[in-house]
């Protein structure tokens, strides 16, 4: 432990920074071991489990640069696919402060990252971790009665909350409703069933066999899981928008998070979407011109150069949405990518860090 702290202190010292400049010490140590970085949080995959045919569970060993998360929050996971870094937010299912981070990733039909992980994740693989965030967390003062409701891969943040409560010896009442399309698609079914002191109800919406509940969430499901919810009851719901809406309709004191699968089909022509220059707080309606011209028309003065896509002076980070490269015609919808704004036109809604 002492030597570890000492190594860390030495690596982060101004002298080492000078000696390893201008690249920095991480650019050398990562060549010895990819997770040996002091500035960037990374993790090594230590185990891979495929609990269901539509999900993959990764057990991650984070390096010391990772500063932790609160149960319910999400982490941006970065993997490299065909030379390109792809970043997606996932909520861990493991308890706060656990040694390993457990991520269960649900496969989307055309999801690049989820399918890649399902097919290629293996122990030893290294992934990036950053931007821990989200307000979907347990209150500091724990409620006495808690109902968790989740659908599909929305189970992970509430699983993390449940495991965190159990790890700290929570003595209140806990109920858990999880919806899946069929029994064999329900993640964490065995783990939940093995838990004592938690009322677990499964709802299978397509193949009913083995389902404890009929149909979609409503007053009956609520009554079966947590009768007479009162002021001391809190509900945590995570799943598709329809499920979260139903929970909000029938319960009070609800904390929820909903996820929408990424959109893969982008219209080919510019669509008059809304363009947000996030750093400047300016929003304009797309008029089909390159982003640089639209920014300038809005009174902004971003750095620019050749205006023909060769010098990269105008490169900015696109944080959301799709753009079309006006030279190659290629449409790119990756989140968190750098684009040359002089030759990129929006396709629908776009957020640019500018």
């Amino acid at each position: 432990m002492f030597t570890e702290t000492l190594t860390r202190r030495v690596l982060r010292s101004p002298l080492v920074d000078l000696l390893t400049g201008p690249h920095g010490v991480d650019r050398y140590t990562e060549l010895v071991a990819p997770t040996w970085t002091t500035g960037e949080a990374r993790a090594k995959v230590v185990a891979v489990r495929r609990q269901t045919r539509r999900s993959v569970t990764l057990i991650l060993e984070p390096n010391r640069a990772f500063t932790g998360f609160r149960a319910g929050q999400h982490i941006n996971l970065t993997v490299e696919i065909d030379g390109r870094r792809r970043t997606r937010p996932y909520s861990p299912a493991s308890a706060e402060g656990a040694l390993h981070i457990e991520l269960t990733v649900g496969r989307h039909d055309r999801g690049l990252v989820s399918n890649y992980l399902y097919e290629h994740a293996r122990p030893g693989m290294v992934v990036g971790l950053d931007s821990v965030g989200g307000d979907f967390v347990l209150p500091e003062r724990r409620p006495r009665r808690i109902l968790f409701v989740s659908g599909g891969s929305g189970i992970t943040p509430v699983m993390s909350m449940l495991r965190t409560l159990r790890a700290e010896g929570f003595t209140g009442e806990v109920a858990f409703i999880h919806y899946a399309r069929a029994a064999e698609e329900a993640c964490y079914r065995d783990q939940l069933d093995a838990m004592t002191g938690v009322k677990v109800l499964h709802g299978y919406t397509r193949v009913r066999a083995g389902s404890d509940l009929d149909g979609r969430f409503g007053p009956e499901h609520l009554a079966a899981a947590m009768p007479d919810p009162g002021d001391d009851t809190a509900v945590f719901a995570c799943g598709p928008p329809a499920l979260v809406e139903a929970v909000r309709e029938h319960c009070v004191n609800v904390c929820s998070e909903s996820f929408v699968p990424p959109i893969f089909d982008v219209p080919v022509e510019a669509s008059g979407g809304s363009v947000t220059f996030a750093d400047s707080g300016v929003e304009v309606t797309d008029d089909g011109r390159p982003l640089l011209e639209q920014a300038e028309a809005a009174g902004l003065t971003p750095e620019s150069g050749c205006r023909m896509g060769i010098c990269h002076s105008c490169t900015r980070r696109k944080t959301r949405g799709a753009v079309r490269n006006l030279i190659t015609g290629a449409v790119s919808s990756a989140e968190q990518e750098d684009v040359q704004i002089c030759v990129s036109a929006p396709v629908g809604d776009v957020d640019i860090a500018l």
Partner: protein
Amino acid sequence: MTVTTITPAPKALQKTVGGKTVTMTPEQAEAFGRELDALKERIIADLGERDASYIRRIIKAQRALEVGGRALLFGGIFPPFWLAGTAMLGLSKIIDNMEIGHNVMHGQYDWMGDPAISSRGFEWDTACPGDQWRHSHNYMHHTYTNIVGMDRDIGYGILRMSKDQRWRPYFLGNPIYAFLLMVLFQYGVALHELETERIRAGEITLADKREILEGIWRKTKRQTLKDYVAFPLLAGPFAPWVFAGNLTANLIRNIWSYMIIFCGHFPEDVQEFSIEETKAETRGMWYFRQILGSANLTGGKLFHILSGNLSFQIEHHLFPDIPAHRHAEISEEVRDICRRYGVPYNTGPLPKQFATVVRKIVKLALPG
């Protein structure tokens, strides 16, 4: 406010290259540009794992040479260690600046999304601050390549490298300035964005360049402290050997990068352009200018890596933001397109090309 500009009709561009007249009509330029655009699109669509592992392998080799070289220099009191250490450190700096730094800062690997090798984030092991380089090189030089009066790389504000630069008695010292620039190349590059020629001409004052100067100072200070203070002191009694090794490694890098870079645009028959000639230039004509204004070097695979693939200067100027190892792969195709449009493709071995550069430096010291 509406600004009305009158765009002159596109016209043909004619140049005399090696005694032969080369003409590009607007129609030809259109088709020429389309072919080159199609080539670029094909490469971009093919970028992937292969390019990522290429640059990572190069980075790994460079860092290994650097660590190994510096380690050997600590034992530099033994001549074989000193020689090997110095050579390794020199190679490391060459690779860092050429195949990694220059190319990464062009955005050749931006598609990877890796902040450590992104054009905006990368900093190289030389005195010149990366952000200043990105402006003076990627934008000014690559956009206005060889346009006299716009491309400050023609003579770098110190030398007379084109007949179209008016002769002054100052230029009698052309060969001396060129030699000094060679041995002090990293500082010459660092001072480039200061635009000393405009300060001397009284167009701007040093105060206008305060921020630039501060940037140069910050970077140069750290580089100097590292190579000439920190590493020698760490070696204790062996400090003089480490100091001398670092100095020599920097010198090797300076001379090598100077030679490669001067062979990019200054060999015989490379064309310059007037502002008039390039008004309302189309994309096809821009490609035409890039080719006429650049020259390649022939050599083996290792030579190309050490030159940062700037030995494919023509391909580099056509497509500065595709990974440089791809420039070698497409050179035959580019050459074929040039042949079909009657565009000369300037290439030759380093000694021959550099000899024509030296001749030019000496010749242009004199009026005419």
